[in-house]
Structures are given as C-alpha cells and as structure tokens.
C-alpha cells in the first residue's frame, strides 16, 4: 500500500547532515501546519566532525540564501572568507609554474568561444588572464565585491572558504531555531526494517524508536545505514586517483591584518599536493598524498617545510598535525529502498576542486525538489538519483584526473604514474583526443546540470599548457574582430576592478562591523 512521505529522518549531523536538513526544511516545513513534512536530525555527541571540507563552490551562495541565512552573519560566525577559484602551483613543472581555475566564466562565454581566438595569442598572455579579470583579483588578494554590493551578489563570482566545525554549528542553530528541524542528540543502537526492507525506525538509547518514511544517511565514514544495513558495495577509484592519505594543520596569521588569499592554493609536491586555505582568523593547510609512494613521516616533513616560512621553523616543528585517511571511491548506488546517503556516507575523493560540499548541496537539492509524494514513487526517484550521481562521480573523477594527466613532471614515480593513460576513463580519453584539434566547449557537456561547465575544462587544459591546433574556418574568421574587442574589454575591466575593490581582509572587517544589506 502506498504510504505518504512525511517524516524525514537524517542520521548524522556534520556539514552534510545540516546542509541537507536546511535545504529540505526551507522547502518543505510549513510552520503551524499539522500536515507539514517533519525533519528530525539525530546526531551522536561523541562523534567528532571531520573538518576536511573548507572550500565551497559558488553554488553555496544559493544554498545559503534559500535557507534564509544572512550572508554577513554567516561570514562572521563561520570565520569564512571569499573563494574565487583555485590556483595550481607547479602541477605542470616542478617549479615556477602556476595557473588559475577561477569561478568566473570567460567573458561572453555562451556568445562566443574565446578559447578559439586565444590560441593565436597564447604566447603573449595566459588563458585565464585573457578571458577574465578574476585571476588578477586573486593575485592582488582582492575581494569579489564591495561593501555596497548586496548579500550574495558579486563583482566577480565566488564561493567560500570556511571553518567546517563552526559552519555545522551555525547551520544547526539556524535549522533548529528558524526552520523547525527537530534535533536529537543520541546514539543509534539499532535499525528496524519493514518486511520489504524499508527502514521503519532507528533505535536510540534515550529517545527510543525514531520512525520515518525517508532516512537520509549522513553518518559519514560510519556508514550506519547504506553500508551497515544495506551493505551496498563500495566502488574503489584508487586506481585512478591514488591519494589515500592527508595531513591537516592550522596555521595562525602572524598579524591580525595579514592578507587573506582569494583562491585555494594547491601546490604540487613530489608525492601529492598541499592545500592552503585562508580563513579570517587562520589558514587551513594540508598535504594530500598517496601512501604507495611516500610514508607518513616523509609527508609530514614535506608539510612542515611548507608551513615553516610563514610561521617560523620552530613553530612549524611543533604544529599539531592531524592524520586523515581517504578511501577514494563511492558506493555502487546511493539510494536504496527508503534510504539515501549524502556526504561521506556516499563516497569521498581527495579534496582537489572541493567537490565534497558541492556534492552534498547537489544531493540535498535533488532530494528536496524530487521528494517523492508517496512510497510508490520512491523507486523511480531512487533510480534517477542513482543514475545522476553515478554520472556526477564519474565527472568529478575525470575532471580531477585532468589536473594530473598533462603534467610534465618527472621528479617521482607518483607523477610518472599519473601520466599513464591506462587509468584514464574512455570519456576523458576521448575529450583529450578531441581537444587536440578543437577547444573544449559546450559540446563537451553531455548531461544536463553538469557539475563542471566546459569553461572549467578550458581553464585546466590551457593552464596545463594543453595544445589545440585549430583550423581557422570561415566562422572563426568572421568572429575575430569581436573576439579582439572582448579581449580588450576584459583588459579594461581588469584595470577598473583592480582599482575599485578592497582586499578580502578590508572587506571582511567592514562586514564584521556593518554587515551586508539584503538589497
């Protein structure tokens, strides 16, 4: 018999749990209506939050706005700063090479493919600076907006760098106080199932059976439902992306008014890479590496050397370093019966390009907009969800792999191994073949709502000095004048932006004092 889907239970309260709760609550909970959807989040107080994801995509702006969050409060409460993209240092060569993958699309992207025209001037200006002003803003540590810019609006597209622990806490308060999410702090000791395999309730120590129609597994590596109840197999992607370990450390600023970087800086190392994320009060730095090629001690040494110049070698020696293990891969499916996994319970991959939180947002949005009205519809929605997110995982893996395959580094087996195309998917191989004679563009998007626009492929491919030999056809000839005008316009905009924008630090201090207006 068909049963309506009214009571939603979220298991786990990290970033994944609270984002999912907030997205669903903002769309579905009707205050003072006894027929309203209910959302209950159960978290165990004794499971620490794994604070890896400290970067978001621009999609987070919409996610927060839809939840009714004040951007100024969020920035201040979560120690957050603006992220305008990623800067990749020494991925192509061992030294003196860097490129940006900025969040802004190339100018007039859907009107004209500038990449076709940039190839002719590639010896004079790098791709990103030719097509957008954003890389230059990042070079000068400038903010993507002004104090007079309304909340969530921008002069240059942006996401955030944030303190994941503070973010979870902030979302929790908002979800409980403003959106009507029920919050239970308790440990789950058992799960009860219906005859058809659906979860009937989770059993807690203090609150007894918590029943529900849909269960969302945000229990992270504990995998309480999808893994432990349904035993959905795990698909390892370690063969493609071998990084399986990370060391994380917090680096304080020397001075209160030190610059805050506008991009996540990812610096390639002999056996992995180091992320460097600037928050308001500190930096978050970490080394991701592959244990096949280096030991934890070697990795720790690399990390301490990286942070030594900014905090002094003595402090770097004594800094408290946390080890995290990464099992790169994802579940074979994510939605089984009346249970769907979001966040690390669904899968995890190295944090290059900060896909973790973005996938949580996408999952939550899917569940919320497609929430089945009754149990009969559940299998159809589940199938669609599984298809979509398996495809997204593949997109992420291909896109991350693209950062590695074009390397010219020869300093280690680690990089040699990444050049081996045997581990590259057919999809990516096809793209790489096509891009030798045509630039990445919208035809590379084969699915709707793609995670990465083809512009992202352009930034990485040309950042890594990927080559395209274009035959200039009649259409391209006719576009040339227009393309020149856009390049010129971008150069003008760049100068204008550089003089008009404050630094991240200056703007964040102002926001702390004055907030950001809604209009």
């Amino acid at each position: 018999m068909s049963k309506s889907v009214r009571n939603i239970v979220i298991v786990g309260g990290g970033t994944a749990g609270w984002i999912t709760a907030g997205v669903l609550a903002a769309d579905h909970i009707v205050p003072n209506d006894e027929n309203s959807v209910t959302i209950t989040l159960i978290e165990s107080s004794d499971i620490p939050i794994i604070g890896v994801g400290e970067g978001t995509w621009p999609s987070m702006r919409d996610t927060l706005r839809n939840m009714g969050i004040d951007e100024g409060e969020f920035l201040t409460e979560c120690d957050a700063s603006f992220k305008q993209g990623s800067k990749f240092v020494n991925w192509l060569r061992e030294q003196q090479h860097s490129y940006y993958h900025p969040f802004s699309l190339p100018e007039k992207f859907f009107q004209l493919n500038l990449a076709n025209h940039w190839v002719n001037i590639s010896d004079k200006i790098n791709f990103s600076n030719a097509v957008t002003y954003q890389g230059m803003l990042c070079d000068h540590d400038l903010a993507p907006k002004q104090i007079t810019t309304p909340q969530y609006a921008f002069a240059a597209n942006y996401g955030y760098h944030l303190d994941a622990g503070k973010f979870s806490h902030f979302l929790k308060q908002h979800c409980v106080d403003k959106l009507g999410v029920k919050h239970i702090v308790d440990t789950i000791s058992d799960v009860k199932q219906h005859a058809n395999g659906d979860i009937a309730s989770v059993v807690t120590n203090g609150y007894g059976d918590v029943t529900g129609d849909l269960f969302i597994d945000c229990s992270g590596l504990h995998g309480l439902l999808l893994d432990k109840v349904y035993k959905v197999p795990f698909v390892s992607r370690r063969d493609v992306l071998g990084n399986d370990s990370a060391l994380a450390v917090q680096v304080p600023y020397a001075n209160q008014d030190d610059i805050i970087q506008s991009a996540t800086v990812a610096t390639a190392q002999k056996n992995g890479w180091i992320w460097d994320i600037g928050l308001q009060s500190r930096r978050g730095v970490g080394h991701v590496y592959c244990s096949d090629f280096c030991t934890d001690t070697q990795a720790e040494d690399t990390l301490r050397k990286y942070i030594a110049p900014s905090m002094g070698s003595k402090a770097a020696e004594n800094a408290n370093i946390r080890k995290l293990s990464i099992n790169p891969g994802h579940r074979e499916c994510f939605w089984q019966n009346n249970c769907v996994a979001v966040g690390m319970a669904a899968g995890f991959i190295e944090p290059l390009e900060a896909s973790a939180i973005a996938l949580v947002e996408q999952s939550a949005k899917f569940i919320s907009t497609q929430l089945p009205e009754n149990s009969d519809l559940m299998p159809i929605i589940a199938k669609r969800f599984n298809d979509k997110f398996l495809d997204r995982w593949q997109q992420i893996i291909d896109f991350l792999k693209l950062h590695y395959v074009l390397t010219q580094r020869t300093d280690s087996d680690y990089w040699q191994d990444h050049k081996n195309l045997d581990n590259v998917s057919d999809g990516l191989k096809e793209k790489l073949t096509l891009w030798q004679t045509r630039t990445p563009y919208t035809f590379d998007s084969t699915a709707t709502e793609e995670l990465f626009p083809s512009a992202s492929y352009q930034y990485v491919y040309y950042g890594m000095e990927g080559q395209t030999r274009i035959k200039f056809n009649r259409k391209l000839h006719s576009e040339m004048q227009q393309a020149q005008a856009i390049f010129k316009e971008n150069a003008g905009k760049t100068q204008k932006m550089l003089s008009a924008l404050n630094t991240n630090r200056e703007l964040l201090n102002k926001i702390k004092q004055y907030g950001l207006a809604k209009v």
Partner: protein
Amino acid sequence: MAKFEMVNNVDHSKIKINTKRSAELGDNLWFCLTFPEEFRAVQAHYPIFFQKEEETGQFAPVALFGFQHQENLFLSEQGWDAGYMPIAVARQPFTIGSQIQTVDGQEQSQRVLTLDMENPRVNTEIGQSLFLEFGGNSDYLDQMADMMEALHAGIESNKKFAACLAELDLLEPFTLDVQLNDGSKHQMVGFYTINEQKLAELDDEKTLGLAKSGYLQAIHFTMASQGNVSHLLKRKNSQMGL
C-alpha cells in the same frame, strides 16, 4: 587641501563667511545628506531617496537637487531657489571636530565647531561675521553651531533609522528613469526607496512600533517626496529651454 581650524574669537575675529549660493562656492551638488528630523521641510521641495555610503554600505537618506553629477537645478543667478535649504548644505563651510578636554581630571572628547580655512567662502570682506566687535558670537555663528548640532544628531538618528528599515526589509533598489521634453532619456542607478508593498504587509506590532518611534512619519514623508521628481524635471526642461 582642506585646512580645519577650531573656531575662536582670536584667530577668527575678522573672518567673514560668504553666504552667497553659487557653483563657484561649491553649491553645484546634485544631492546632499538629509535626516528624519528635517524630512518635513525637505519633502516639501526635494525628492528624498536612500543611497549606500561608499565606505560602509550603510543606507543614508539624501535630498536630490539634479539628475547628474554637479547639476543643482535649484541654483540660479539669484542664489538657491527653494523655501528650505537642507542643513548639510546650509552649514557650509563648517564641520564638527573633536577635542580632548580635561574636565575634573577626566579626559573627555568634546565636539567643537571647526572651519575649513581653504573653503572659498572664508574671507575677511564679504558676508557674515563670525564674531561681534568685542569678541561675542554673532547670531550667524550661533545659528551655524545649532545647525552643526542638529546635523550631528541627524547622522546618529540616520544610523538607527536605516538599521530599522534594513531590518524590516523596507528598502528596495530603484532606477530613476527620466525623459526630457526633447525625448532624451536619463537613467540613474544606485538609489533605494521605500518598498511600499512590504510596508503594507507589516504586522500590527511592527507598524505600531514604527509609528511610536516616529519612523512611520519619516517613511511617509519619503514616499510623499517622490512627487518632487516631476518638479525637478520641470526645472531641467526649462533650464534647457525645452
């Protein structure tokens, strides 16, 4: 470069302020700051809008005199052609400075009237004297001191007023499109005005709160002032001979 001096009857005994109103003396402003306490007088002559202060992003009300930079449609050969001049303009070239004074052994910051000696209005021949023959304040100086106090208080009340409007979402961005008699169009962006729909939807408690604080009256003055845009337009057309 401005050169500020604290007004006193020793250094400034011979100083006069030219109170003529003209572009040369700095009156070619297209708007100036205003505040709720003078809205009643301002709304009779000028449109009141809100702008964001560039440095803080905070909303502040302004009285509009023209449609573009340096255009003051109230300025003519005869001076300022309106029955009321906003205090932020009338007080020129005075400003308020602060001075640390020791009172009963305690250091206190006190507001003092200061004068920009480089301002073109400041001279020794034309206009209003600051001091009487034997050093007493002229009526003019007392009047300026009162204005500066009013402006100082007005800036403080603007902060509270703007915070209240922002809190209740009562402001909305507004693009002013004007068309002159010759068909030419001008567009002004960066202004904000009262969101009348949101105002109408406020619950009783909030509306009562606005009424009791006096803000409701200020809001209504702001809304009523918008009719003055057509008066500005009339001035513009006639100045251009249209």
